[in-house]
């Protein structure tokens, strides 16, 4: 009987893994096996290296900015008391609700040569546009900034969790040995938290690598842009699929690096019983400085762009006429996609508990889906649709779209769930098994309730991500299922940013609720 059991237990997970990986696989295989065009030679010779270098440099700058935004803030908020700390503790996650392309539209409008900032400079100084220097958002640095400002909350959450897990006694021991606040951060907390933080960073960077909307809008020639360009301008989806390989390779490299980091040092604290942090006070001056820093971060990464959009909407008297159906479609697709992706992530996490190889394999497959641009996954779906003779209509289209969401976003769900699982004491599994509960039952009765906060967080992240998704939704949605993202993109790319403001703001609003819930949840787990 054990063999039959094993069979039964491995098949469903394998099926799910296969489903998640299929669209990427199809897109990649099609890309590899379809014929070369004259285009491919051109791309290979003249564009592949520049695309790749640009992508890597943008990713590097994004990584630095993300770490700079997320880690000090997470540390301050975990360790110290300062004015407004309570608010910042949840507010820091707000930028997660903003898609990168919306951030790009808003800041481009603000910083553009015809925008309010530069106009004010010209009015006040009498200079003409070519006489003064002003930071240019339409640059690699600008793109990195836009991506970092919407993605840093991932790393903020991870860093908060990591810092909150420290033993209080470790910190007190360090202080008794003369460690100043900066030492506590650099020499004690950060080294221990680093592997976890880098894991979160990888997630964020994979997301950044797959971006198309912001890079295209800002005119930066990344691999993502190149992929769409070879599809649109050259009319060769096969070439697009090949370029996607390069992106998936980069993402895979990130993932492997993260695993290596996490394997190195034990992140387990030596204490079996640890107490949660008591926050220390800061001197009034330092306290105000930290408050100012956090305020600036939030202003730049959330308040200002949102307010600008609201202002544009009001100034242009944009009508809210047919937003209802858009909102409904967006929320329904988000809920369905999140539920299925969550289930998929659970199954991935479950099956990866069996062996380390299986774990690595599932993570790679999930990561490949996450790293592949939505457009390429959509392509994969279209290839499959063609081969199986379907029509992109009604529930078939929805089914495929939800499938693509699962393929793309399972990874986003797996990371937090597996991180939570990893934090559980190892004896728990054995204790449960000794009491007769194994496999799925064990997971449902023992693991899941314990990792519920992490699992809940995963579900919420999935929902927000799907809400913001653009390319795959553009390609696969059936009639009547335009989402807010689709509409915002349509207007913005047609230079009607004013009309794009309302759908964009609604995306942010709809994404706020889960983000705030997530933040509240995190606050709860911290207090236990």
């Amino acid at each position: 009987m054990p063999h039959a059991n094993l069979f039964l237990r491995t098949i469903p997970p394998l099926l799910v893994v296969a489903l998640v990986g299929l669209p990427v696989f199809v897109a990649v295989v099609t890309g590899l096996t379809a014929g070369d065009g004259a285009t491919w030679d051109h791309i290979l010779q003249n564009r592949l290296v520049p695309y790749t270098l640009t992508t890597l440099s943008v990713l590097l700058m994004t990584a630095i900015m993300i770490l700079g935004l997320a880690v000090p803030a997470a540390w301050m908020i975990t360790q110290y008391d300062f004015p407004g700390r309570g608010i910042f503790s949840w507010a820091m996650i707000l930028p997660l609700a903003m898609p990168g392309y919306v951030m790009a539209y808003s800041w481009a409008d603000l910083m553009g040569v015809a925008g309010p900032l530069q106009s004010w400079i010209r009015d006040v100084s009498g200079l003409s546009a070519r006489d003064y220097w002003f930071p240019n958002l339409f640059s690699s640095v600008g793109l990195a900034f836009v991506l970092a400002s919407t993605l840093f909350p991932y790393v903020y959450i991870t860093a908060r969790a990591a810092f909150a897990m420290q033993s209080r006694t470790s910190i007190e021991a360090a202080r008794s040995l003369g460690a100043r606040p900066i030492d506590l951060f650099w020499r004690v907390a950060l080294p221990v938290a680093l592997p976890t933080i880098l894991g979160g960073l990888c997630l964020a960077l994979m997301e950044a690598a797959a971006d198309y909307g912001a890079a295209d809008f800002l005119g930066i020639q990344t691999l993502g842009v190149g992929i769409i360009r070879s599809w649109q301008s050259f009319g060769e989806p096969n070439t697009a699929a090949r370029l996607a390989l390069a992106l998936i390779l980069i993402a895979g490299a990130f993932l492997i690096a993260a695993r290596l980091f996490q394997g190195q040092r034990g992140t387990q604290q030596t204490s079996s019983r640890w107490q949660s942090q008591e926050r220390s006070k800061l001197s009034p001056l330092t306290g105000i400085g930290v408050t100012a820093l956090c305020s600036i971060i939030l202003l730049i990464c959330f308040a200002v762009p949102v307010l600008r959009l609201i202002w544009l909407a009001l100034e242009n008297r944009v009508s809210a006429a047919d937003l209802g159906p858009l909102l409904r479609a967006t929320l329904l697709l988000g809920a369905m996609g999140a539920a299925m992706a969550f289930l998929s992530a659970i199954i991935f996490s479950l099956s990866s508990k069996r062996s380390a190889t299986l774990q690595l394999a599932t993570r790679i497959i999930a990561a490949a889906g996450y790293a592949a641009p939505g457009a390429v996954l959509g392509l994969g779906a279209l290839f499959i649709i063609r081969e199986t003779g379907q029509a992109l209509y009604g529930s078939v289209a929805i089914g495929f779209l939800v499938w693509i969401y699962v393929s793309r976003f399972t990874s986003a769900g797996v990371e937090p769930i597996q991180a939570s699982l990893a934090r559980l004491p190892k004896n728990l599994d054995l204790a449960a098994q000794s009491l007769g509960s194994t496999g799925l039952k064990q997971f449902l009765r023992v693991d899941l309730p314990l990792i519920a906060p992490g699992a809940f967080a995963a579900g919420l992240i999935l929902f927000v991500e799907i809400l913001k998704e653009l390319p795959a939704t553009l390609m696969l949605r059936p009639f009547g299922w335009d989402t807010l993202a689709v509409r915002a993109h349509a207007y913005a790319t047609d230079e009607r940013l004013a009309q794009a403001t309302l759908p964009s703001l609604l995306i942010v609003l709809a994404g706020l609720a889960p983000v705030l819930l997530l933040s509240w949840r995190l606050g709860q787990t911290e207090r236990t």
Partner: protein
Amino acid sequence: MSTREPLIAEKVSRTFAGNIAVNAVDLDLEPGKITSLIGHSGSGKTTLLRLFAGMERPDSGRILSGAAELSGPTKHVPIEKRKIGLVFQDFALFPHLSVRENVSFGLQHLKSDDRKQCAEQWIERLGLTHRIGAYPHQLSGGEQQRTAIARALAPEPVAILMDEPFSGLDPAMRDQVRDAALEAVRSAGIPSLLVTHDAKEAMVHSDKVAIIDRGKIVQSGTPGMLYKNPVSEIAAKALGPVHRVKRANLPEDWQKLISARADLVAYRPEALQVSAGTGYRVVRNRLAGAVSEIELEGAGDEPLFAVCQLGSSVQTGDDVSVTINPSLFFDFAG
């Protein structure tokens, strides 16, 4: 070189959310001596340690190092400036650093060579040289605690405070680790505080014992003194078992011997010595390691309790005679 100053708590109080955790406590920690602070959980012993360490600020009273004020109404020196070593029950080692690196942590002010030498010395003194490159998760509990102590002592602190440092260890190895650790502590010649709930640990290893109950120091003195002359039942119970009996239930000759005059007296079980004879019957005999706890029935209404050595052949149902050691009978006012 640090001068060996005592660490003094002068009428310190600390209240949390309306509950008085530490109530006007005076306690001197003398250099070169190990002072145990013993009490049950919630008695305030950990809070007092935290006040000494600078992790808490007293609501009133002062903490001094010799004549220098560390905490007071106008002043509070933060932990990182106090140079007081801390050792915790959960070891609190830095998981990302090796033994050597952990011990070197507080030695950043030294030059690289001196740092290396100092760390190695202390590691050797605690018997950890063969583990110098290992990481905390690779060490046993005893090795971790010895590392923690080496780490605390290496920077030559002005005092060392230990919060139940040995309770997390295997009982089998506890004695060995404790001996090595406390020897190193003693040799440093600084005031040392050992917070514990283990009476035996306090008695065997410390030079001075302070008993704390509900935020107040009930009694302090040498182990011997406290054992033989507890001022209250709480003080007595802190250091060993104590039994109550009505004076009237004791034989006349005993009543004449003991100095206690109250109707209800307390005594330590070792006050009763059991030998072959008659007068009392052994009702129960429980083996408790090195000694047996014996319940006796005699002329009086209440049972009496004694301990006897393992070697003796006293069995349940035997008749024995009992003599007393009057100095171990107490009478507590109030």
